[in-house]
């Protein structure tokens, strides 16, 4: 079982994840149409890159945009969830040991120590609870939320819950470990086909709007450009 999950299924899921998301990312940009979108994407590379980078960078830093500052609770929930969700899978100690055993080298030279991994994982769970609660009680989020959105949230947080259960050896360690791997692989497989595709499409969409403002909607008129 372990061999199957960490062997065949690992390679299948990780391939679907990386290939699938790469395809979606490439197709997004290939599909941009200067006539339909009414943005001269290729004519002003400097303004395009400047606009795209600014649009992405400002939104991945907490409280840097008007939007984040205006809704501080959401900002806290969002970053509490996403910081761990992005960092732990790559830098988590156990993951790096596992990756090294698979491909000979680890993803990144830095690995998180156990305490940091634990804290970040807990933050993901707390963030997920906050995001779920928000959807349940705020009418403006509730009206937009479908059951699939809750499922995606659950799918995203499940590897962290099961990971922590395995880490603390709650009951049967192997049970939690297997479940953790299954949940993680389910997440990887689902990513390109669901709203989880925002893992890359967030950057793509932000880049597009950044280019739109950078090239067409005033980016060339004022030095500062749009004040996100």
């Amino acid at each position: 079982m372990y061999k199957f999950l960490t062997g065949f299924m690992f390679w299948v899921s990780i391939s679907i994840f990386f290939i699938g998301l790469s395809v979606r990312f490439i197709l997004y940009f290939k599909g941009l149409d200067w006539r339909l979108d009414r943005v001269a994407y290729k004519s002003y590379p400097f303004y395009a890159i400047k606009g795209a980078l600014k649009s992405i960078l400002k939104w991945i830093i907490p409280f840097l945009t008007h939007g984040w500052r205006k809704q501080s609770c959401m900002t806290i929930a969002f970053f509490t969830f996403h910081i761990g969700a992005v960092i732990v899978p790559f830098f988590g100690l156990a993951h790096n040991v596992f990756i090294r055993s698979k491909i000979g080298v680890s993803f990144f030279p830095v690995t998180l120590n156990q305490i940091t991994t634990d804290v970040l994982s807990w933050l993901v769970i707390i963030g997920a609870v906050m995001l779920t609660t928000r959807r349940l009680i705020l009418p403006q989020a509730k009206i937009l939320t479908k059951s699939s959105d809750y499922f995606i949230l659950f799918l995203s947080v499940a590897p962290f819950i099961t990971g922590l259960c395995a880490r603390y050896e709650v009951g049967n360690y192997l049970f939690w470990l297997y479940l953790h791997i299954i949940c993680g692989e389910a997440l990887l497989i689902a990513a390109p086909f669901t709203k989880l595709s925002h893992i890359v499409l967030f950057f793509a969409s932000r880049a597009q709007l950044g280019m739109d403002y950078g090239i067409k909607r005033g980016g060339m008129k004022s030095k500062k450009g749009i004040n996100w």
Partner: protein
Amino acid sequence: MDSGKLCSKEPVKTKEQLRTLLKDTGGKLYYKQMQELKVDTDLLWQTIKTTLKSRIKTWLEICSGCGMCAESCFFYLANDKDPKQVPSYKTQSTLGEIVKRKGKVDNAFMRFAMDTAWGKCTYCNRCALYCPNGIDTGAMISYLRGVLYQQGFVPWEMKIGAGMHRIYYAQMDVTDEEFIETFEWIAEEYEEDYPNLKVPVDVKNADILYTINAREVKHYPEDLAYAAILFHLAGESWTVTSKGWEETSLAMFAGDWEACKIQVKQVYEAMERLKPKRMIGTECGHAHRATVIEGPYWMGRKDGKPPVESIHYVEWLAEALRTGKLKINPEKRIKTPVTIQDSCNYVRNGGLKDITREIIDYMVEPGYFVDMEPNGENNFCCGGGGGFNGIGLYRDWRNKGFTIKRDQIIKTGAKLVLTPCHNCWDAIRDLEEVFKIGINWSFLKPLLVNMVEIPESMKPKP
């Protein structure tokens, strides 16, 4: 469009059709017929398949439903935070549904979508600034309007407006002759005060080609005179064109993309014919957006620019004040509390917020200008953008939406609201009419004409 049928998929193409439609006061019969209008679901799906590409498709798909766009929308705030006014809901429940149902939607659905596209969104694009995923709901609503227009589900006034552009190449029934005659006549009226004041027509290679909003010809000819006076005093070499003088585009608000092209083509042809150094448009927000920002794309211009450099009136004005072409008499600067309504179309969507502040530094005595909160690109729509001012069917919705702008103005304590945009000007006027908060409103030109110094050589001889 056959004459008996007021509401159809066909655009208005003849004067006769236009007259028939105009006779139907308020569009009573038009809207009645709309209830019977058949949805061409095959055409609808075909249109979606060929035009809803990467960007909008992705926006519809990756919207996480977080609702962060809600608070950015003045309709949501003005309507007691009604969740149905959340920007994302407005696109998901209309365009999103059309995509989901592969175009198989009925008449009632299309009328609901029309109410949403024209009655609950002015495509001010403010929500685009507040969405973490970079989703521009305004751009989607604009797209939706095009889809609805193609099927004939468009408010009566918008159908007429788009028809006007197709027939008169102007948003109103103003002919080329009427434009020139009115401009020349009104300038003559001021010639005593400003000797040699002329309206140069079709002059080639001038520094400036001036384009306007047809409403100025019909309703505020003084504005034309003020423009002529200010160019005259600034010593500019300028001209108007006898064809292609209209900068606005109600066709853009209607979603009639073919008419958008027909309209802007006239202006670009005038540019190519007269070869001015620059084109300057009047104090209008959507005109600038239509002719300068969006127009090049309708015309298939790959660089996204009009044939000659084209700027908004406020850009010329700031430059004229900066370079001393126009000098303001310090005694005559504004000394009442004053604020400015930042136009969505050239501030949020055109990057000109600093330019207007520069003008204010010249025009207003220090200490009297108070900015609205929020302002600049974060300012709220005046409440009448996107064609909303002109649509009778949604008048009550518009007036309710005004409450946000009303409160913003009241908080500044201003008695005068500068509105260098036709839509904003109308909206603030109507807002005052509805709520009577005791404010005045004005374009910049009428204020400036009374403020600028007249060089000795230009003064009338006693």
